[in-house]
């Protein structure tokens, strides 16, 4: 109960340090509080539109985005990803052999907690595990080939609603909590937490950018950013976000980053996959 009050308090005040008492974690209650905060703060935004990040917050940006979505720059990455996905490994197996439903239309189930290995498995991690299990070298997590693969897999899953499960397993709850704490903890020279921008200041400007709401912020991954002139995965965004607040980034797909992704994606349950996404 105390925990619930603390979390809601943290959400309301934004950016406050969350006390890590060892009492029960209640993801369901936190999920509701998180969602209610954003829906309450942005009553004019249709629920599904939260997945469009800054475009759900600003009309001028939205029009430019719609223009670009007519023929978006991530099309090349999706096509490349499709080719890569279909191409067999040296041993004759394919990515489809590693995933349920042949790897089509499954983005909404990532990340998930793997009871066997006791860790959060993201789509990128699963792809590299698949490669290594089949004698292939792992891909760089941040961009290029990995981003093309995940762009294709997101594309085949568009519209499917996120359904991240937190099993009744203390390790899963611990991963969720660690991700949540990271999200609400201030860091870096600028002393911002993820929440400082994406909860407290969602919809506002930071310098020249409009801040995306944290609700559904994972739904558009991977993203093509005009700033990058290229695709980038969740890892690319997490590490650059850390650098932007002058904090030392963790290695891509670090366990803690995966816990953050677990927490954040769970908070966006019910929202549709919108990736791959175009962003400023």
């Amino acid at each position, binding site marked *: 109960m105390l925990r619930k009050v603390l979390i809601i308090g943290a959400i309301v005040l934004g950016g406050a340090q969350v006390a890590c008492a060892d009492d029960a974690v209640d993801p369901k209650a936190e999920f509701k509080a998180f969602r209610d905060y954003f829906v309450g703060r942005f009553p004019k935004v249709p629920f599904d539109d939260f997945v469009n990040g800054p475009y759900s917050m600003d009309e001028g940006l939205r029009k430019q985005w719609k223009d*670009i979505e007519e*023929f978006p*720059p991530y*099309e*090349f990455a999706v096509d490349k990803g499709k*080719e890569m996905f279909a191409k067999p490994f040296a041993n004759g197996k394919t990515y489809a052999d590693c995933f349920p439903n042949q790897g089509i239309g499954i983005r909404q189930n990532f990340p998930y907690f793997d009871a066997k290995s006791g860790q959060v498995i993201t789509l990128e991690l699963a792809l590299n595990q698949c490669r290594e299990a089949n004698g292939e070298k792992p891909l760089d997590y941040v961009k290029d080939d990995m981003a093309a693969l995940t762009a294709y897999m997101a594309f085949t899953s568009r519209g499917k609603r996120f359904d991240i499960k937190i099993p009744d397993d203390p390790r899963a709850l611990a991963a969720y909590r660690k991700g949540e704490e990271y999200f609400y903890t201030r860091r870096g020279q600028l002393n911002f937490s993820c929440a400082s921008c994406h909860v407290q200041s969602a919809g506002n400007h930071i310098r020249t950018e409009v801040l995306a709401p944290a609700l559904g912020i994972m739904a558009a991954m991977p993203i093509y950013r005009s700033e990058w002139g290229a695709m980038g995965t969740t890892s690319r965004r997490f590490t650059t976000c850390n650098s932007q607040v002058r904090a030392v980034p963790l290695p891509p797909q670090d366990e803690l980053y995966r816990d953050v992704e677990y927490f954040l994606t769970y908070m966006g349950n019910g929202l549709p996959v919108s990736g791959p996404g175009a962003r400023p």
Partner: protein
Amino acid sequence: MASTIRVRAVAGADTTEVQSLIQHPMDSGFVKDAAGKLIPPHHIEVVRFEHGGKTVFTALWGPAVAKDPYLKFSFKGAKKGDELKVSWLDNEGASDSLVAKIQ
């Protein structure tokens, strides 16, 4: 190797609407790389669209056209099933072309 050109041409009652997206760095020559050196200009100069042996649209581009450039225009006189040829040439002499069917 996959073409650099993506085209969507849809025949309407009066005109055919053409949208194209071309994969090309369109380096302006003003951007520096990680080492601080200027990346030389490398951009498409001419894009030509042909239907029935006739040029229906020509784009003359400079370095200020965005990366992976997009184009949309409409022309009369085509119908579903016709072929539309798209070709480009850049400042390094490289080129690509594609023949698409009008939907």
